């Protein structure tokens, strides 16, 4: 193409405002995070220091050592992994089944309505959602326990018990996002030409076999990309934890992001927070790179 210098400049002009904003609000904080992970000091000290934390003492790898030696941190990483695995499996698994069910030929209008209602929680504020679930989960007066006791089952402590708190939160997040993921899967399933499904019908295929050997392979790119974005998204859980359990009981719902925040603000150990942040950055960064490498390769391949 005949792109000369004029073109180059023009392109840069167009992206300049956005990039500038991003340099300030994305790049600078990341650099700060990395630098900060190697510094010690309290939050107050940091707030007094300049933008590059130049006045703060170097701590070399002490922050990282602190994390690795800290049993708490180990538990937090464990919680995070458990949480992410449960949530992603739930999101992808349930949304696939649900999408497939809603894609069938029977009761189409009801399916559409079901989908529309299932999607609504996604656009509703997580704050409100958390509040309602906190109320539903209440171990003394909450609705869920009233159901359990009326079925002669033991009441559950949900958010107040170490064993059940994390999974209760997973459930809230799943409820909120299921409609969204189902919609993504449904859109993918509908982009498969309907004749392929018809050919399978003519081939006398039972429903489960069509699902496993045709539907899923055909939408496997969508499944792949959605799994990655769901994973990245699952790491970013903060709001619901801050509202419902504040990391407890006994650190059972303390996940990486919440830990970072509490280190920085509550415990005034911003250096440690930054170190944990760098670890999270590495994880999310790797996933992002994988996502885009695969995407580029696919586009290239086609």
């Amino acid at each position, binding site marked *: 193409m005949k792109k000369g210098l004029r073109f180059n400049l023009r392109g840069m002009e167009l992206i300049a405002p956005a990039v500038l904003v991003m340099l300030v609000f994305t790049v600078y904080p990341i650099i700060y995070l990395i630098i900060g992970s190697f510094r010690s000091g309290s939050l107050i000290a940091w707030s007094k220091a300049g933008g590059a934390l130049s006045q703060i003492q170097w701590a070399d790898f002490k922050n990282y050592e602190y994390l690795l030696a800290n049993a708490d941190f180990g538990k937090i990483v464990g919680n995070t992994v458990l949480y992410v695995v449960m949530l992603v499996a739930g999101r992808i698994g349930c949304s696939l089944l649900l999408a497939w069910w809603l894609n069938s030929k029977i009761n189409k209008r009801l399916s559409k309505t079901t989908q529309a209602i299932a999607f609504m929680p996604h656009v509703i504020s997580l704050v409100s959602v958390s509040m309602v679930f906190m109320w539903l989960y209440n171990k003394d007066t909450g609705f869920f326990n009233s159901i359990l006791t009326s079925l002669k089952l033991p009441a559950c402590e949900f958010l107040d018990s170490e064993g059940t708190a994390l999974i209760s939160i997973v459930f809230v997040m799943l409820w909120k996002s299921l409609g969204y993921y189902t919609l993504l899967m449904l859109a993918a399933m509908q982009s498969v030409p309907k004749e392929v499904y*018809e050919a399978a019908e*003519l081939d*006398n295929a039972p429903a489960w*076999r069509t699902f496993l*050997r045709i539907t899923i392979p055909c939408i496997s790119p969508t499944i792949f990309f959605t799994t990655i974005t769901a994973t990245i998204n699952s790491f970013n859980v903060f709001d619901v934890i801050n509202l419902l359990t504040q990391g407890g009981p006994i650190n059972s719902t303390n996940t990486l992001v919440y830990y970072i925040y509490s280190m920085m603000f509550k415990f005034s150990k911003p250096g440690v927070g930054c170190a944990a942040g760098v670890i999270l950055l590495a994880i999310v960064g790797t996933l992002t790179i994988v996502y885009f490498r695969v995407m580029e390769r696919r586009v290239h391949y086609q």
Partner: protein
Amino acid sequence: MGEIKLIGIQKAFGKDVVIPDLNLTIEDGSFTVLVGPSGCGKSTTLRMVAGLEVPTAGQILIDNEDVTSMPSGKRGIAMVFQNYAIYPTMTVSGNIEFGLINNKVPKAERKRLISEIADIVGLTPYLDRKPSALSGGQRQRVALARAMVKKPKVFLLDEPLSNLDAKLRAAMRVELKQLHQRLGTTFVYVTHDQVEAMSMADNIVLMDKGIIQQSSNPATIYHRPQNIFTACFIGTPPMNIFENGLENVKFGARPEKISLEPIEGQAFRLKVDVSTKEMLGAECIYYCNSKLGQIIIKSPDDYPQKELMGYIAYKDLHFFDADSNRIDINDQLKADLDRICD
């Protein structure tokens, strides 16, 4: 074996009635072509036979068995789709095997059938390829192989050649016809192309707006069209229809049956003015005007004159009444024709 009967079939999509009342018998072992313009209901009819659409009313019988509420996979039919619809994530071999697995054919038998059919359609070197690595023609063979391997009672084909280039299309027409002769199975073929219909069919079912206009073999449809629609649909260029020459009767003649030289026997004569001429090599097409209106003439010879005389044998004239239905020639009509002759 594979006789299909459609009895009192009605199909409506919501309030839109696309097929009001269809009655048709497709003979066992025949190559029947459903042909007609877009939206005439031919694909819908085919899909109802396949079980992919459910008729709003009426019955479908295959081999005298009522299959109207039977699921597609159990009807013993195979279908080749316009866009082939082969499973994009399976290999060629997997595509062919899929139906066999569902019908609980044992593994050893499956392997044998697959290699047999691959041999017949010429896909043996491609068995491990995925559809994205195949050409259009090869994909079509996969669709065919997948259909054939099931040894169905009936083959349904929904415009299978329309996505191929002209040369391949011509070759495939011959192959499909040969395939039909070898298998002897009932073939029901849908197309909008009347040339395909004429060249391949044992029986043509011409449809318009959900109604069968005529159902007969190609020769009969060509020589004795039962109505004006049929007369104009079959044949390129279409038949010339003269509406104002005779009272209450329309008559017509095919462009290739109008001679520009005097002919023996009783003939209708008409003076024509040539407005455009297309030289196609083997023949010429003349677009002319006459006292009866515009007229198209196809002739093997090239005439340079602007004014010509057209001669049409009486046996090559077709007559239709006010309802556009066929009338056979009679003496009264002959007398009327003589009067308006040039």
